[in-house]
């Protein structure tokens, strides 16, 4: 039995403002969300944001960001996975982002990590890593993806939610 289970893979049709995984079962140890996305916003990039259980509070984030020439860092009270390509970026390119949520069903605060990158044919592009804290003891049962500009996701944007079960399988150990 694999330690990794695809809970759901979804590919977005055009015109979707957000993508939500609801009623996530609490039977796994950790969650991993892998996203390939592009925004239709008239910009080069767009931040990929997410919400947990519909909550708008108790969020904190620490960020390290590079754009190919400058490194910046920051903090805030929102959840981000990084930046993805938008309408002014190289055609047909999508950003990649990964969110890891250990012990998502535990009754403790949730500490997460995320990274997101996109490439723009050698011109300035953004790469960002995030440390995230949701000061909430509820089990995570919903993840909503949205874009900072509030524009729609481009067609063919996709997201895969994995459940990771503790134990060993194929050289992968989760404890």
């Amino acid at each position, binding site marked *: 039995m694999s330690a990794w289970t695809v809970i759901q893979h979804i590919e977005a049709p055009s015109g979707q403002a*957000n993508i939500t995984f609801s*009623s996530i079962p609490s039977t796994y140890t950790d969650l991993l969300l892998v996203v390939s996305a592009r925004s239709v916003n008239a910009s080069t990039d767009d931040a990929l944001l997410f919400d947990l259980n519909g909550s708008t509070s108790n969020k904190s984030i620490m960020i390290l960001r590079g754009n190919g020439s400058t490194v910046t860092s920051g903090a805030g009270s929102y959840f981000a996975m990084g930046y993805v390509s938008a309408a002014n970026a190289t055609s047909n390119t999508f950003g990649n982002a990964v969110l890891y949520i250990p012990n998502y069903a535990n009754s403790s605060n949730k500490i997460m990590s995320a990274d997101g990158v996109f490439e723009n044919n050698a011109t300035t592009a953004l790469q960002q890593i995030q440390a995230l804290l949701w000061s909430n003891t509820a089990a995570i049962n919903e993840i909503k993806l949205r874009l900072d500009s*509030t524009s729609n996701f481009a067609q063919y944007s996709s997201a895969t939610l994995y459940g990771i079960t503790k134990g060993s399988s194929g050289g992968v150990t989760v404890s």
Partner: protein
Amino acid sequence: MTDRPTRLVVDCSLPEGHPDKVQIIPLTDAEILEREQQAAQAAIEQAEREAEAQRIADLRASAKAKLIAGEPMTEEEADALLG
């Protein structure tokens, strides 16, 4: 008439093939209003982020020029150069 925005919702508790497994749901008026407010805030934050990136780039350029010319630089310029 403008099409109402929609959201994609996947119910992970339902089996594949269930008619309610994947739904495309029109946003409510409240969700549309919230979206508009978020868009305004996002535009502000985008401008702030770009301004900060430009400020750091300008500092680094100034620091580099002073370094080459052998001129003293400010602490902020030194931080930008080393950071």
